[in-house]
């Protein structure tokens, strides 16, 4: 894929690779260049990253009695 042929469609197609994989490939470098120039794609890319970040930060605490219940059910309580 030549740099000057990058279109929004290519960014959507290859956003998988551009998020965390092989960032130095010619294709990713071209995509990153396109993201710097295309407001729509930059916005799309940023919101996909934000989506991932939302789910990464959404954690739950193990219920207070869960550890003891678990060890008991596994026959590992002392």
């Amino acid at each position, binding site marked *: 894929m030549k740099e000057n042929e990058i*279109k*929004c*469609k290519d*960014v*959507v*197609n290859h*956003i*998988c*690779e551009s*998020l965390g*994989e092989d960032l130095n490939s010619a294709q990713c470098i071209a995509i990153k260049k396109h993201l710097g120039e295309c*407001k*729509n*794609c930059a*916005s*799309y890319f*940023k*919101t*996909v990253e*934000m*989506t*991932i970040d*939302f*789910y*990464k*930060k*959404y*954690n*739950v605490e*193990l*219920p207070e009695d*869960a*550890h003891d*219940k*678990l*060890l008991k*059910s*596994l*026959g*590992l*309580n*002392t």
Partner: protein
Amino acid sequence: MQEEKLLISLAKSGDKAALAELVKLYESTIYNFAFKICRDKEKAENIMQETFYSMIKSLNQFEGDSKLSTWLYRIVSNHCLMGARKLKSSNFVSLDEIEDDENNVKELAVDWDSIPFKSTENDELKKILDDSIKKLHPDYRVVFLLRDVEGLSTEETASILELTVPAVKSRLHRARAFLRNDINEAFK
């Protein structure tokens, strides 16, 4: 890591204290991952219990050529996917509708910086995140969670789910696009 290897070795020889220590090391990770797939705290606790049952039962088959966490992710994923296969596919969106279309970018570009409840401590955002991911079929959900949320590599994700690397990439791309678009709609 050395400590974990020692614990596994002791646990394999029947040391209950070592087994309990391994459970303690991973219970929070496993509970969280199970919750993230099921979006239900009670189910997550049950799956956590089943996962550690399976771990204890088959620990002797664990050869240590992958991380114990990867092995546990595989057990959780299998439990969750087995449960999901009992559900009707009409409960989930068809991701065939997600097309690699330029319009996907243009029509859905919205400034998320203006959203007032971006903290994941916010209950309104949590509900949006729960609602969106529940629409995803678990086969896609688990790929997104392993790869993006738990941070496993594409290859590790493929190995856990017994998929090819291109299949993982395809499911990941569709899951990301669906979630991003569905959340975008909820923000409007």
